[in-house]
């Protein structure tokens, strides 16, 4: 499929973890950041989620979905997958939480996960502000962001049809546990992602020349 000698591989993944550390190198037979194989040079880049602009993207999404919520009375929850298979999976989300917290826009910024503690289903106990903004730290809108997380948040029933996927974002804000909850789409769907992929390639060259 690819005819060039130099091949950059950019994992369209939100964090380092089981897939970027194990599955992709295994499937592509990579031996490190640079692998020379069959006269080809394979350059294995960072996952796009490591890009420094991810923080801006998360804040942009949060501001967009909860335009009528005052940030100084809002808790921001970054929800990620997390997995017991690799301890790095949750690191990217936690790093983003720290970066956002440092900017001092929201009085409360927390990370929550689907398969790790603290669990996203506990959002009401994890937050204290009257407005709660939830942004999925995911690459695409799929089963997790359309179905699994809404069920864990309590804004959708387990048996609701996946046909009404877009509906989940139309009912913002949800009134639950005496709070106003805003639920955003996955950040990986932002058009800025194309630039982030190109930047990831450039960063690879800077780090490996």
């Amino acid at each position, binding site marked *: *499929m690819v005819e060039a000698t130099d091949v950059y591989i950019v994992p369209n993944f939100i964090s380092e973890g*089981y897939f970027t550390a*194990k*599955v992709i190198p*295994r499937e592509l037979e990579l031996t490190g950041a640079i692998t020379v194989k069959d006269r080809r040079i394979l350059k294995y880049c960072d996952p796009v989620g490591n890009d420094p602009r991810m923080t801006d993207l998360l804040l942009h999404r949060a501001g967009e979905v909860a335009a009528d919520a005052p940030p100084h009375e809002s808790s921001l929850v970054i929800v990620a997958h997390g997995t017991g*298979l690799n301890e790095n999976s949750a690191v990217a989300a936690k790093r983003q939480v720290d970066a956002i917290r440092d900017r001092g826009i929201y009085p409360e910024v927390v990370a929550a996960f689907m398969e790790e503690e603290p669990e996203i289903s506990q959002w009401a106990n994890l937050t204290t502000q009257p407005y709660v903004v939830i942004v999925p730290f995911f690459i695409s809108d799929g089963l997790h962001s359309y179905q699994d997380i809404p069920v864990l948040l309590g804004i959708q029933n387990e048996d609701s049809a996946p046909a009404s996927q877009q509906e989940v974002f139309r009912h913002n804000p949800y009134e639950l546990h005496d709070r106003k909850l805003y639920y955003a789409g996955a950040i990986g769907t932002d058009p800025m992602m194309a630039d982030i992929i190109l930047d990831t390639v450039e960063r690879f060259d800077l780090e490996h020349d």
Partner: protein
Amino acid sequence: MIEQLLQERLRAGAIRLGELIVRQAEPAGYVVRHWQDDKPEQKLTVKTGSIAALEIVRYDAEMNYRPLKGAPNLRTGWELRLDSVAEVRQTIDYFYPGAFATWLAYNRGEVMPVDLRQTLARQTGMYRVTQKLTDSQAEELAGRFCQSRSGCLRTILWTVDDKAPNRYLPSSKFDPQADQLAERREANVWIPFLCVEACNLFVAEARKIVKVHST
């Protein structure tokens, strides 16, 4: 080189790969259709540019998601117009990822099919358990999951313990010279649609079988 070969084939007539047919258009450009729509006076929805292919491949006629791109359930009723061979190449890859390049590599003798045992042996995490799949279970799974009528249109080149999993499949399923579409037209424009290694969906099905038998 891929584009050059595509151009040669298209100049000579057309390309049919899986359920797709690509032809040169008049006065310029290219047109892609479902082979069943490849006849005059069809009322088709016209789309332009390779990106439109992503919409077409995503859902079948009943709007169910198509996780397996080789499945014989491509929608009909559309026509895709493209300007360049580069776009044709991109479009074919959207419909059938890697298929054209695999066929070229096969012609050059560079395709090395991967035995199912090797595929399963390198699985980790939740798929490691697939290593317990028996030969007979693998035969049954291939017979159900890979069959050309409603499973997958690719021709199987991989083996199970060095043997083609042919207990429940016709010998044509393993023959690169055989077209997997029963009602094929214009055999001279057809390109073999090859499978060199059991796909991830096959591995996921294998996991289900092993799990059911272990509980």
